[in-house]
């Protein structure tokens, strides 16, 4: 039992609607998502004895437990700092249930990310000139999109990636969203021309390159492999990895220094599979260029070839590596990587409205590769 391979499973998923103005508290949305996930798992709230949360989430475990009528939790934990926690929380939950620290752990996220504090505005991420932000914020580098744009521009310079390559990502994910009634952008297709004519935000990134800040909540239940039965439609955690690269060391970045690059050998090695074996992918896509670089990081294509890879249609439903079949952060909702996990679970159960035929293996990640999972049905 030296790795998490096949020790735990995701057995229930739940979501509220995703929209731009929920008119609800984050707590009330968290309760709804958790109730749905627990019911989907065929469990009762009293069966839940563990909860793990994003550090950034405003809903404490004890409040969620109270609203679900759970008297106390045997296991609880959290992971920070901001958006990239989802896969790491699955790892906490899987370790807890596989070592007997809990039977059934709820992982949840609830955020009024559009009507409340917007991540894209920098209000969540600013450090007001303290620490190493003393070397970035005084120059007007204030919001996450600007940092992503710096990397995207350099990828263009180094490898010839083009704005049409970025557009291919945005258009593909919008196509997926148009198959998904839960997506905020359902019913609003875009073409490459629409993309090229859209508003420039962080040159070279346009509005369609940016995550769709949203209100909503989602949750899922992690249980041990012994407890997971077919009645639960379990999706097994075949491999799990985290990677936290040391902070910028002042020499710019190497393209091979992302979390995803660091964790990839272990992730695939522990699962005993290769990128060729993956049927469906859920990438944390706060901005479209990260899908291009992650395809390279995880070995779905060679370094520098991510742009042509997306332009050739591989990532679209019907392609051989469909990415973010719910629309992802760009076109479904920005729920910090949780909705990608839920969509891959749905795919492996055969229940997605954008179903990949006979999907058996899925890869999901969080942040810039802060964590990743290989899931199997």
């Amino acid at each position: 039992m030296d790795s998490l391979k096949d020790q735990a499973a995701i057995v229930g998923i739940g979501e509220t609607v995703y929209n731009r103005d929920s008119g609800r508290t984050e707590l009330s949305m968290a309760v709804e998502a958790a109730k749905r996930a627990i019911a989907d798992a065929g469990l009762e709230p009293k069966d839940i004895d563990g909860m793990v949360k994003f550090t950034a989430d405003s809903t404490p475990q004890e409040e969620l437990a109270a609203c679900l009528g759970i008297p106390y939790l045997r296991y609880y934990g959290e992971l920070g700092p901001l958006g990239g926690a989802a896969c790491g929380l699955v790892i906490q939950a899987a370790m807890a249930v596989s070592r007997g620290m809990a039977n059934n752990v709820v992982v949840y996220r609830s955020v009024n990310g559009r009507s409340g504090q917007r991540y894209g505005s920098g209000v969540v991420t600013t450090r007001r000139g303290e620490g190493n932000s003393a070397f970035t914020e005084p120059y007007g580098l204030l919001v996450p999109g600007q940092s992503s744009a710096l990397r995207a521009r350099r990828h263009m310079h180094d490898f010839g990636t083009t704005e049409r390559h970025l557009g291919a990502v945005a258009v593909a994910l919008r196509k997926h969203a148009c198959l998904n009634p839960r997506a905020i952008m359902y019913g609003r297709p875009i073409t490459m021309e629409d993309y090229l004519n859209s508003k420039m935000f962080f040159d070279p990134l346009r509005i369609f390159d940016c995550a769709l800040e949203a209100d909503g909540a989602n949750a899922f239940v992690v249980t041990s492999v012994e407890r997971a039965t077919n009645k639960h439609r379990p999706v097994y955690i075949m491999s799990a990895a985290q990677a936290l690269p040391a902070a910028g060391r002042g020499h710019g970045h190497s393209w091979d220094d992302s979390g995803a690059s660091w964790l990839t050998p272990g992730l695939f090695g522990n699962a005993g599979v290769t990128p060729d074996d993956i049927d469906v992918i859920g990438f944390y896509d706060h901005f479209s260029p990260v899908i291009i670089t992650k395809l390279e990081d995880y070995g779905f294509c060679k370094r520098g070839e991510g742009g042509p890879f997306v332009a050739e249609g591989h990532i679209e439903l019907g392609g051989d590596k469909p990415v973010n079949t719910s629309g992802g952060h760009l076109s479904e909702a920005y729920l910090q990587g949780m909705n990608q996990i839920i969509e891959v679970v749905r795919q492996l159960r055969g229940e997605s409205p954008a179903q990949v035929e006979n999907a058996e293996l899925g890869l999901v990640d969080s942040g810039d590769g802060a964590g990743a999972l290989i899931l199997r049905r």
Partner: protein
Amino acid sequence: MTAAHFPLPVPNLDNQEFFDKCREHQLVLRRCRDCGRFSHPPRPNCPNCASDNLEWVESKGTGTVYSFTITRQPVSRALEGRLPWAVVEVELAEGVHLISNLVDCEPEEIEIGIVTVVFEEVNAEITLPKFKRAS
């Protein structure tokens, strides 16, 4: 133009010397006396070999624009009224990267190319290293 609308540096014991030298119009970097590597931002230890035997060395002040982005929408309150706003990532000759601004050109004129350091006095306490295109 000053950067008064943006957060100003809050120097700490690890980087005070950097900002003190900026007031004297010197750009200084941390260099490890053990492994010889430059690093930035300033930290108490070398990120290459973990040594705390570090010195401050004046940079040649020349480098190249490694990347840049031009913000065109008021996504942050601090950017309102200042658009388009260009941020550059400079790779200094010493190999380290700094985030900064170019002072002598319009955002549309920025390209990946050679620059040299200049100093912008924001107030009595804070002077920021910025860059201009090499003539």
